[in-house]
């Protein structure tokens, strides 16, 4: 009954984003492989969040933003008129920088997406909730208190709850925007191992400005950089993570990784 969607791939070509008259990102092209973890790194303000928001069209809600270029999800353009942003967002889930559970119970938080999808049957919801909590490695801690208010959880638990909430719509892609930046090292470790397991079924794109984290959990790393304030950011380099951190091909990547700027 509960089917897992096949993991998604993104093909991005010549993507540019501007806010009003200010260009934030220009000429970005790369491929995001299915069932892999892709890390986006770069100094703050270089457009990592902006790029991530293009993948589930969260930029649509901002009224001054302009996105140009092509983003193909599993081969089809996500900005095409025929694509409904609602179903896109069910398939491309997102976890944010600060845990943002809804002011509801643990159960209702996870069931939120499925209910939006129109799932009403109790057993089906139960199954989805439990399954998602397990995948997010939170189930064992909360299995006896699913009715508890989400705000009673610790920050790390809240963030795993948000992961479970995003997984409950059975996404093929999970976007994570600095998901550990508000968390302690232990919670960070738990999220990282969750990501490790999730990539078996879901494609993950994670923004981080923690280089160790990128090298620990990602398969591919993309480095973005805005070289001066009045220029838009560009994609400097994208390769598999080991190569990126041992022998980057671009001097700017090496400077960033070795901490010479940013």
């Amino acid at each position, binding site marked *: 009954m509960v089917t897992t969607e096949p993991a998604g791939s993104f093909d991005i070509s010549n993507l540019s984003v501007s806010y009003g008259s200010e260009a934030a990102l220009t000429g970005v092209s790369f491929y995001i492989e299915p069932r892999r973890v892709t890390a986006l790194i770069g100094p703050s303000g270089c457009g990592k969040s902006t790029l991530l928001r293009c993948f589930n069209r*969260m930029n649509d809600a901002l009224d001054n933003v302009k996105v140009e270029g092509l983003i193909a999800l599993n081969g089809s353009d996500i900005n095409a008129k025929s694509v409904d942003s609602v179903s896109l*967002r069910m398939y491309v889930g997102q976890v944010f920088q600060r845990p*943002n559970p809804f002011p509801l119970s643990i159960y209702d938080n996870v069931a939120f997406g499925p209910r939006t999808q129109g799932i009403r049957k109790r057993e089906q919801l139960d199954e989805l909730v439990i399954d998602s909590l397990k995948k997010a490695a939170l189930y064992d801690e909360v299995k006896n208190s699913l009715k508890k208010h989400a705000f009673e959880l610790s920050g790390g638990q809240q963030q795993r709850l948000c992961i479970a909430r995003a997984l409950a*719509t059975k996404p093929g892609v999970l976007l994570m925007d600095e998901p550990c930046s508000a968390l302690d090292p232990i919670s960070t470790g738990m999220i990282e191992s969750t990501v490790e397991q999730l990539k078996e079924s879901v494609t993950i794109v994670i923004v981080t400005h923690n280089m160790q984290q990128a090298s620990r959990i990602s398969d591919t790393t993309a480095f973005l950089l805005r070289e001066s304030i009045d220029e838009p950011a560009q994609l400097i380099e994208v390769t598999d993570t080991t190569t990126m951190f041992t022998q980057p091909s671009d001097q700017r990547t090496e400077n960033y990784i070795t901490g010479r700027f940013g």
Partner: protein
Amino acid sequence: MNTPAKTRTARTCDAAATLVITVLGWTAIFVLIAIAGFLVHSSLRALDEVGIWSMIAGSDWFPTSSNARFGFLPAQIGSAWVTIVALSTCVPVGVFAAIYLSEFASTRFREVAKAVIEFMATIPSVVFGLIGLSVLVPLIREHLPVDSGLIGLSAGLVVGIVCLPTIISISEDALRSVPRELRQGSFALGNTRWQTAYKVVLPAASSGVFAAVMLGLGRAIGETMVVLMLAGNAGIIPTSPLEAARTMTGTIAQETGEVVRGGLHFSVLFTLGLVLFVITFVINLIADLVLERSRKKWSR
């Protein structure tokens, strides 16, 4: 080491300011207690000669007959009808307006609307009473099966308008204080703006919206001029908002000018004032406590 003169002056100013604020704060509390004490003191004769229960639960209000009866029920039930009508119109309208302003309106529209609403709050209610008298009362007389348009319904509708600014601006504040991240979380799960507003933002702001309703309620019960002008001020217990009604505030305002100072009737009116004081005090207290809790909610 010598303290520089500048720092010393700053410290003196600081101490003086603290003192002034403390004194003012205590003065406010003292005035409140003094008012309560004065009300109780002036009510003593009525409490002694009529008794609290024959007033609060008494159904006849014949204050000037030879066999005088001082039952508050006509006024209390009249106030209840007016308040029910007022809230059942201004709560839905006010909350929807607040949702629109905080979740859908453009920044420019919101600024303009808030300025207008703030202005509306400063208009003396007698002006609304006049407009009600010349526009609403004839309409009601024409379209409803009533002999006169001076009934609880007319007063309630206009009191509702008087309460609207309070409800809109406090609810809007509550809705806007819901963190942006929650809305994004909802959008990211494929919810539309409207779904986000009623499934996430409104529940998250519920305590603030509740407080807004309580403050509106307090305002409605306390409103005097509008009910005096529009409610009809009959002495019997109204069985529906389609009948003429008198309210607690209206009774006090209307009769204090005509009674003998220090007489029993005078003292009874103070007891009515005391009842009103207690009701509005409790309502405002609840609103304050709830509002305080809702402010704390997001500062985690």
